């Protein structure tokens, strides 16, 4: 496609992206450098049906004056980024000086909300992404091998987890693993422990969410791999069969190299999706045991009665940076291949 045609072709999408993705990200970035003005409070008498007390309220007249002068708030620089609820720079320094062993230090650091969330998010990515790729590939290969007549219904059944809304999917599993649900009660019987609960144990909650993640994301990998498998040329495969190559050898030396770019693509998308894991945490009511970076943003914006815009913005920006870091190796590799190909 000539560059000019491409430009006009891309223009509407580009404009929409700038308007709905680019500008909001910039605005989030700016927001993350600001904190609220110092609250001006005053003592007043408050009366309700249960009696009167003297206590404090925010002085709105004074506050609105400051707010009008500086509507963005107080400039805080990287203050929000480095505070205890985010990167916790000072706390980590303190832990490093105070703790004696490395494990005690790690214990302290992983107790901080941001690192707790980061560890869950990374664990989720590390377990879900490869398994999704593997499972998706295996399903695609198996379905490619079955008779054409039953392939249609099988494909439909396989992509069902993707059709089910994430929240509904996780809720179904949530009720099944309840201590009185079909899975929860059976596990209790099997282990002979009436106090065993999948939902109260941190490890078991993590495992549940990871299994759910694999179940939910595999169909996407499967669909893309299945499409790619249709483009594998038959001649080299037949030649390999005549040469006596085993099924495994054929997959390793012909199929995989052929669909390699597609694998990269699925890995990229999966990584991005998994790094933003959120719905299963809400669906499984797992806030107590598992928090992800996206959940932290949600928590800052809606779970408190006071909305913490600065905190949420800072976490959002760090999530974007995190995704960029995760994707960097794959992106660099793709770029290199692209240059060689040219």
């Amino acid at each position: 496609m000539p560059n000019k045609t491409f430009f006009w072709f891309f223009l509407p999408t580009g404009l929409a992206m700038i308007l709905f993705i680019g500008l909001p990200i910039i605005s989030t970035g700016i927001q993350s450098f600001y904190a609220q003005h110092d609250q001006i409070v005053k003592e007043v008498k408050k009366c309700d049906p249960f009696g009167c007390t003297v206590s404090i309220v925010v002085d709105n007249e004074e506050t609105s004056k400051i707010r009008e002068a500086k509507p963005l708030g107080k400039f805080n620089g990287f203050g929000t980024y480095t505070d205890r609820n985010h990167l916790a720079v000072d706390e980590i320094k303190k832990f490093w000086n105070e703790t004696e062993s490395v494990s005690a230090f790690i214990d302290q650091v992983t107790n901080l909300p941001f690192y707790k969330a980061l560890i869950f998010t990374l664990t989720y990515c590390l377990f879900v992404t490869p398994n999704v790729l593997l499972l998706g590939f295996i399903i695609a290969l198996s379905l490619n091998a079955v008779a054409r007549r039953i392939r249609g219904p099988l494909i439909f059944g396989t992509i069902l987890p993707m059709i089910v809304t994430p929240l509904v999917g996780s809720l179904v599993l949530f009720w099944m693993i309840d201590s009185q649900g079909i899975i929860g009660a059976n596990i209790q019987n099997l282990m002979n422990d009436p106090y065993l609960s999948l939902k109260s144990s941190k490890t078991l909650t993590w495992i549940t969410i990871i299994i759910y993640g694999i179940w939910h994301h595999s169909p996407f990998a499967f669909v893309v791999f299945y499409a790619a498998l249709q483009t594998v040329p038959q001649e080299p495969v037949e030649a390999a069969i005549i040469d006596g190559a085993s099924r495994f050898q054929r997959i390793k030396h012909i199929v995989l190299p052929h669909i390699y770019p597609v694998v990269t693509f699925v890995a990229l998308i999966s990584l991005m999706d998994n790094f933003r894991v959120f719905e299963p945490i809400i669906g499984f009511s797992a806030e107590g045991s598992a928090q992800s970076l996206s959940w932290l943003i949600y928590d800052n914006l809606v779970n408190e009665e006071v909305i913490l815009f600065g905190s949420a913005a800072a976490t959002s920006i760090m999530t974007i940076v995190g995704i960029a870091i995760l994707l960097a190796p794959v992106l660099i590799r793709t770029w290199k291949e692209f240059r060689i190909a040219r």
Partner: protein
Amino acid sequence: MRKILVTLLFLFFGTSAFADCNIKSGSINILANDFPALRTFVETSKQCKGNADFKVTHSSEHNKIAVPALTANPSEFSARIAANSSIVPLMNQDLIRPLDDLVKKYGKGIQDSQLITIDGKVMAVAFMANTQHLYYREDILKDMGIAVPKTYEEVVAASEKIRASGKMQHPYAAAYKAGWNLAEEFVNMFIGHGGEFFKSGSAEPNINNAKGVATLNMLKKLSELSNPDYLTHDSEAIKVEWESGNVALMTLWASRSGTLLDDEGDPNITKATKLAGPATVGGGNIPAATLWWDGFTLAKNRSDADADATFRALAHAASNKKMVADAADQAVWLVEGFVPGPKSIGVIEAVKMKAKPYPMLPQMGLMHGALGSEIVEFLQGKESAEQALKDVEAAYISKAKEQGFL
């Protein structure tokens, strides 16, 4: 033709029955939490809407919508049904208007005790009271020869006895869902121990002390007597537990008693469900519970005409003797003419025992939020009480700094 006649008749009847609600214009849009008493209240105010537009949003997610919706100008809602805690963010952001003039003009039937005044200005009109108190299964306690517990220590002893007898594995229940609910239980228990959340006159936290530790230890004991999934159980979930007969002692909102004692579900359980006042803890004499009021506030960013119409409709309900007589089961109404029934024992006992109201402080929401996520690991046995309280304070301090309270 007949249809028109019927409609006309209806209109005539409608206007003559509520002649005092002669609202000519304006638009009313209410945001409220979702439980039966509030639905009754809003329905009653609707009877008085006259020619005004009437819309209502009942949502248990009301807290998440309120501030953004009322910040817009004109605001989406003309009224917000709020409580002690949820009025605070509205006050902090200056989103609600003083009601003094409207009360003078249209608030004839509203009692003075219903008015929430802050700095001498009426900011809300309360119409019902709420608290969390004990529910017990009379049959089980009688069978085992256990007296109705008055303190949480007795609740623990009774639950242990019931568990030991093999009747129930998890005899106690309370809404311990991580987040707002769990934090609310901490607030109750901490106040029961005589704790103050902040150093006097400042926003410095004050929970990492002996009272805080005692509070956490009691919560832990109770959680061990609850269903192992307690960290995912909110009020609705423990109500279901109760109705399936898995629980003998429970701490739950007074406003839920109506749905527990209705005709739905196992009649034997319903018959044996009895209410008691809130329990005390640690030898204290004030209950480990907080008193709550529910009342209406009017949005500031809305025209005076809409505020007028909204106030008149809501005031009609907030002074409606017929409503409180008809719905005496649904809530403890603060409206004149309310005769407390057996379902209001919990709140009335709490008031008699001098329970404290939930602290109406600008920074309390941040403390509540920090509690909800930082004490979970203690309950799971992953860290010490001191460490958990230290974490709460640290999390609170960071948030309070960002919000400019410290």
